[in-house]
């Protein structure tokens, strides 16, 4: 339906909408957290690993920051209008109008 109503470019841009970005951010934070937890468990079993690796920590912090920015900041309303401004900058008010 999305690509039926809108052009391919518009449809691809859709994946930057707040709910999708929230999903990516949440997954990224989850990956970082899981990595840290696994490392903690390995360390507990005597393995010689640092608990907070740089990629895992960055993923966790960036993911959480995005979740806050997108979802907690007025339930994504602000992000939605930023998303729409981006759309207008590229396609004005939409193709076929």
């Amino acid at each position, binding site marked *: *339906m*999305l690509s*039926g*109503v*809108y052009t391919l470019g*518009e449809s691809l841009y*859709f994946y930057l*909408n*707040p*709910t999708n970005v929230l999903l990516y951010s949440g997954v990224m934070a989850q990956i970082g957290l899981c990595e840290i937890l696994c490392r903690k468990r390995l360390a507990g079993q005597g393995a010689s690993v640092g608990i907070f690796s740089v990629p895992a920590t960055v993923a966790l912090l960036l993911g959480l920051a995005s979740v806050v920015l997108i979802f907690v900041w*007025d*339930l*994504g*309303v*602000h992000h*939605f*209008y930023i*998303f*729409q401004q981006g*759309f*207008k900058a590229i*396609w*004005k*008010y*939409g193709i*076929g*109008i």
Partner: protein
Amino acid sequence: MADRRFEGLFERSMKRREALATLGAVSAALAGFELPKPAAASVNGSKRPNIIFILSDDHRWDHMSAVGHPFVTTPSMDRLANEGVLFENAFVTTSLCSPSRASFLTGMFARTHGVKNNLTPWQNKNITFLEILKKNGYDTAFIGKWHMPGAIPRLRGVDEFVTFTVQGGQGRYYNCPLIVNGVQTPSGKEYITEELTDRSIAFVEKKRDNPFCLYLSHKAVHHQFLPPRDLRHLYDEVNISLPREMDPYVLFADGNLLYGLLGPVAFHYRNYCEALVAMDREIGRLLNRLDELGLARNTIVIYAGDNGYFWGEHNLVDKRYAYEEAIRIPYIVRYPDLIKNPGRVAVQMIQNIDLAPTLLDIAGIDIPLAMEGVSLVPILKSTEAAGRKAILYEYFRDYPYRVPPHCAVRTHTHKYIEFEIGRQPELYDILSDPGERKNLMGTPEGEKVLPELKGMLETLKSGGSV
């Protein structure tokens, strides 16, 4: 000196101020300027009326106690209905904020005024009824939600322009910064509906010689449906029954997350109803002030919504589609000097594009040919007045929502919907199936009425009348 009279000028007595004004007018006319001209007498022959138009956002037609809502109480709207005419078949031409608002202002369809979705900018060449009223000697104010894309315009013919731009022009329920005549100004009241009412009352209270026109455009009851603090739990104990066709997971499906309704629908619905009660209370405050000022009799008050709203009907939320819940709006007109049998329900089909011609007609001003709506004055005067045989509905793409562009024709008995892409046509008998659940396309009953409906749709789309 001010009272000194110039005897003999134009063979009648004249005050110095009047004489200067006359000389100025003649000079200006000779220089080719178009002067503001006073309108002829109003439609009832009396002093030109004041006008208050109150527009709400996403207020569905059946959410008023006047039309029998099971628990929402709206005494102020009921009062307007008891003292005026309630139009029970009022519709928008496009069920979306920006196009509908532009249609109210211009008396035109979206395809004509150009604001086809919430992204297309307002065109300054559009002429609003406020501009025409101003040219005819009215003091005018636009207070509230403008919400049309593009920069806030220098709206011609508006003396006082109070609006907001935050959240894409949707505004905020709490502490919403305002733009007052182009200047950013903090809100005086915490809650937006109260702030807009305060400013409207201040405008109405101003001492003036001219009649006034107030366009009060509320944010309520749009998403995020936030009521004021004192009404937050008003309907906590009410058992909400949602439509039977509603899938509880619909908010997570088909792009509906973008409507911002995460969480239980009943929670949002209660908030919606509470925000509505708050708005009704503020309308009451404005009406009471009119009474106190002695202005009620010669002031036409019109209350309307910009479009309806789905709360699970057709397994939908939001608006846009051509079903009744989205296209049907509350519409009440009170004007004691004109409506001789108040408390009446009008069954004729009317549309948002009828507002502008109606107000001009009542004020005794010629209706521009470009306006596509019709004056409702005959219906306000008489129950027997003829109404439309059919109305046209149109919806255009509005990114990022997945609603396909479509158009529809609605008569008193049927509705036919044609989608540009993605969905097959739909046909409903709205008398026997008011919930529009049984698509009659391909059935013998449907085949019987389809040719006429298709013909009507084509005629209306091409600008004709049926």
